[in-house]
């Protein structure tokens, strides 16, 4: 049985391949803006304990693909000076009394206010820098270690000394690096504020692959003109595809030779691999293949609709290949097609072999042999043996298909293609037929994309349904005859026609909507209502729920536009007309995350030194004269209160327009003013930005941990303190005020129910539910007790499963037993379990 031998051989593939496939992450590049709302809600709740970096955006939306924005980071770096080794056990100080800080803190200029004026009615949300600082006079006291009960305190000496505090700061940072990494990782926050906030020019981001290929091409100047026609164009990409993916003997010799020179390892007389231009193609992380080159070409050279038109290759390719299906036969069947969609592509791309070896187009008479009805799935499915043995797909079709599968999803710049398609009139965007393309049309398209339900037929085979009378994408029955339907049947049909074309080029409707919206916002000012959830709720485009910290759409699929109003408003303010007047911090991206870590690593030693030497005030947020757990918690609490420009969800634009719903913060105005005004150490006009807050947090942590046996003991103390001071925990939305708002404005928002939420990172997708639960319910880390660290581990395992999940790389990842114990509500481990345990710890819930 050769098939069994083949199967057994596959069974013996190398471990790396098995391990790679064990990773359940979708194998595309994601730009994760962050975590789901429900997870973020938990982060907020626990962040109030001060265990997470909670100042600013915690809620991030997984946008799956293209992030259109790249910003130029010009973070100032401050390098720590190196000094001879100093013991980190003792701190030499000399008391020189207190120093009035007003004479020592650098003056800063007033920050330009963040202006929302061009989208009219949003109140300002600026943190104006002033030159006034509260004098902070403290004296050194002996520290006392306490494990529980009274909050630990530490006081600082504002001493000027030759002692190298900067070096000590670097030691502290390394000592507590794990704790800080856990804080940052757990929060998921990767926002970075550069040392100097600056206006950002809109610039489309480039995928890492395209960038790597460009670096290679720039560095080694390889000959990419595979067909030797004097230029590098799409036909060279096609040539490389033919060499990579089709029988090499079907490729002209001159192309084959150049291809092998470009991609194959050469060996010298000794059998050693010869590097080409000093570069080993097979060395990680770079290996040049045709779709990487396509990605490069589409990013840096050109991307046009004709690259996805088989006619273009037939009519223009200068090279002669041996094609299994002769091109003149293909041309006969597709010569009249101007605008392509999935159905046309599927029906014209399949040829059936005749007995004499000739080919004919697939037709209705082949349906019976080619498809069978699968009772289990309820769909007509393809008979793979039939297709494998009796059909051929022209290589041009394969190339186009593979471009769409392998190269296109990785591109961040494909909005240019969409605009080209629209400019050519391939698709009509005037959905409401008012003669104008405007944001109303984009809203209708978003509603269509959110509402469109795949009835399962399209997930079967378009070839089958192309020959059937099956209709898809019909106007939803529940909207028929409804007086408050947000979209008419005519508008729906126009949207359907639009997506018929768009889906040929883009696999994701979400991307299409995003491209349209961002392009429009880049060029046009829009009415402020388009960023207000109230508008969409009242117009029945979406329904929103609220909890104590977030406002989000009920339907998880309502993520196109309606659940990302913060994202689009930020975009409009940062890049739209008039945006040059505004100053904003940078957005998330992976590069920024790395820069942030570098920036923090450089900043903290200097911060530490400046505090110790009295140059800048210590992080006494509540102005009680001590550095204490209270400051640690308040730092996060106030951070929650201010809504940043970079929050992507719908809560931010909502609260800007309706601040009356915001819960009051239970802190003194002095403390709030202190936070807002006195901690802009990097002089970027923002007091307590992420960098500053993290430095302050690290400082407080270090000061306090000396009084405990270890970091865990300090966490317990923070936990206990929070239990004793619930007034310090802050929830952004006041239920009472929201209910009043709803009644007054006749808005249909509803209060969120604490049900099970779906989470893609859950291991429940792969493994079956467990059966035994030995241990304490809620004890996720199986340490014999239920504590905040259990909550932390649940969220880490959900937000970062590759590190903290069941098969995580971290040694403290969740174990199967912990997984069982974490599932307190019995329906799989979700953020709801974290919330439930949290409530239990706060004394307001039960986990039994």
């Amino acid at each position: 049985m050769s098939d069994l031998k083949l199967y057994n051989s596959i069974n013996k593939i190398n471990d790396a391949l098995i391990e790679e496939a064990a990773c359940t992450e979708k194998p595309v590049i994601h730009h994760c803006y962050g975590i789901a709302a429900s997870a973020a809600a938990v982060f907020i709740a626990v962040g109030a304990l001060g265990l997470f970096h909670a100042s600013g955006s915690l809620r991030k939306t997984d946008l799956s693909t293209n992030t259109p924005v790249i910003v130029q980071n010009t973070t100032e770096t401050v390098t720590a000076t190196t000094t001879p080794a100093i013991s980190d056990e003792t701190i030499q100080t000399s008391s020189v009394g207190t120093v009035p800080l007003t004479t020592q803190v650098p003056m800063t200029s007033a920050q330009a206010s963040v202006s929302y004026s061009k989208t009219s009615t949003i109140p300002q949300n600026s943190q104006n820098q002033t030159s006034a600082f509260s004098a902070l006079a403290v004296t050194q006291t002996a520290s006392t270690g306490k494990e529980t009960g009274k909050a630990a305190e530490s006081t600082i000496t504002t001493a000027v000394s030759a002692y190298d505090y900067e070096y000590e700061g670097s030691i502290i940072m390394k000592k507590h690096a794990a704790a800080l990494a856990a804080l940052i990782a757990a929060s998921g926050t990767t926002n970075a504020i550069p040392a100097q906030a600056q206006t950002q020019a809109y610039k489309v981001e480039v995928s890492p692959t395209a960038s790597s290929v460009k670096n290679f091409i720039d560095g080694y100047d390889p000959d990419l003109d595979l067909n030797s026609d004097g230029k590098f164009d799409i036909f060279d990409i096609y040539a490389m595809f033919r060499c990579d993916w089709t029988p090499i003997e079907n490729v002209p010799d001159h192309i084959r030779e150049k291809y092998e020179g470009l991609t194959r390892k050469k060996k010298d007389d000794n059998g050693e691999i010869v590097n080409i231009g000093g570069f080993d193609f097979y060395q990680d992380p770079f290996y040049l293949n045709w779709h990487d080159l396509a990605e490069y070409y589409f990013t840096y050279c050109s991307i046009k609709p004709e690259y996805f038109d088989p006619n273009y290759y037939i009519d223009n390719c200068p090279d002669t290949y041996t094609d299994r299906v002769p091109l003149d036969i293909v041309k006969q069947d597709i010569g009249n097609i101007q605008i392509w969609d999935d159905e046309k592509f599927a029906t014209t791309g399949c040829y059936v072999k005749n007995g004499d070896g000739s080919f004919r187009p697939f037709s209705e008479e082949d349906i019976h042999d080619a498809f069978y009805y699968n009772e289990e799935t309820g769909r007509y499915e393809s008979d793979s043996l039939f297709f494998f043995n009796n059909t051929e797909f022209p290589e041009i079709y394969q190339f186009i298909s593979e471009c769409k599968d392998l190269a296109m999803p990785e591109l961040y710049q494909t909005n240019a293609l969409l605009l080209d398609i629209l400019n050519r009139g391939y698709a009509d965007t005037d959905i409401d037929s008012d003669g104008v393309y405007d944001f109303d049309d984009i809203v209708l398209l978003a509603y269509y994309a959110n509402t469109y339900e795949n009835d399962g037929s399209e997930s079967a085979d378009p070839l089958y349904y192309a020959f059937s009378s099956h209709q898809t994408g019909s106007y939803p029955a529940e909207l028929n005859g409804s007086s408050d339907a947000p979209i008419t049947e005519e508008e729906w049909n126009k949207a359907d026609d639009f997506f018929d074309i768009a889906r040929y080029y883009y696999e994701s409707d979400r991307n299409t909507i995003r491209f349209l919206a961002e392009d429009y916002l880049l060029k046009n000012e829009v009415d402020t209502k388009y960023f207000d959830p109230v508008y969409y709720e009242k117009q029945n485009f979406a329904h929103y729920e609220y909890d104590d910290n977030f406002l989000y759409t009920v339907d998880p699929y309502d993520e196109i536009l309606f659940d990302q109003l913060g994202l689009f408003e930020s975009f409009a303010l940062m890049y739209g007309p008039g945006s040059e007047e505004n100053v904003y911090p940078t957005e998330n991206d992976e590069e920024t995350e790395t820069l942030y870590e570098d920036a923090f690593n450089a900043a903290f030693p200097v911060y530490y030194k400046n505090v110790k030497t009295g140059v800048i005030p210590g992080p006494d947020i509540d102005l009680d004269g001590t550095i204490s757990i209270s400051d640690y918690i308040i730092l996060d609490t106030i951070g929650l209160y201010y809504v940043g420009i970079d929050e992507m969800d719908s809560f931010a634009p909502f609260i800007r327009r309706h601040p009356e719903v915001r819960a009051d913060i239970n802190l003194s105005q002095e403390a709030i003013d202190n936070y807002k005004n006195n901690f802009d150490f990097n002089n970027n006009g923002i007091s307590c930005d992420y960098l500053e807050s993290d430095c302050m947090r690290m400082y407080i942590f270090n000061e306090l941990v000396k009084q405990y046996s270890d970091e865990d003991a300090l966490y317990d103390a923070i936990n206990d303190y929070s239990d004793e001071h619930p007034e310090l925990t802050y929830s952004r939305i006041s239920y009472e005020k929201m209910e009043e708002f709803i009644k007054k404005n006749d808005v249909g928002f509803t209060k969120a129910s604490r049900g099970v939420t779906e989470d893609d990172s859950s291991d429940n997708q792969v493994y079956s539910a467990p059966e035994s639960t030995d241990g304490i319910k809620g004890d996720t880390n199986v340490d014999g007790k239920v504590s905040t660290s259990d909550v932390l581990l649940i969220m880490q395992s959900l937000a970062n499963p590759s590190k903290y999940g069941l098969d995580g790389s971290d040694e403290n990842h969740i174990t199967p037993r912990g997984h069982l114990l974490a599932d307190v509500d019995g329906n799989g481990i979700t953020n709801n379990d974290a919330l439930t345990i949290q409530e239990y710890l706060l004394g307001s819930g039960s986990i039994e």
Partner: protein
Amino acid sequence: MNDASIIKLLFERNEKAVEELKQSYEKLCFYIAGNILSQKEDQEECVNSAYMEVWTSIPPNKPDNLKTYLCRLVKNCALNRWKYNTAAKRNQNFSVSLDELSECIPDGKCLEETVSEDQLGVAISEFLMSQPEKYRKVFVRRYWYSDTLEDIAAIYDMDPRTVATYLFRVRKKLKAFLKKEGYIDE
């Protein structure tokens, strides 16, 4: 407990090692066995056999990747059990994936007898490494993990039809590869 610690226990002949192994990998083992064997008793027997095999083979073996080592043992046991089961007990899904692989061998031909499964496994590994990541992962999930198309689609957030298309393409390429490299007995 991490793999290194479990291996350490095994070398110390501490029976806690098996307990830890179960805690860490029992669900995965049953998942793999369950994709091949439909009967729960057969699955249990295979999984327990695999634990025993780990206990007896480590030491002297010291695998770099304990998880994969264990998975292979489970899978091999499940395959052997599958061969002896009657047609009625065979896992339908597993049979389908075998039928699919038969497409990779031209009609009337068979794999070269002189090449061993290990050698072929190495060659197939090289072939897979040259494929795009998403094709490669889908292929391994289908023919090593024996997942259904729907499972794979759910894992990687894809359409099952896309999964089927990827598998179709890779099988075609594999067929060409086997022929070109001389693994098909002409």
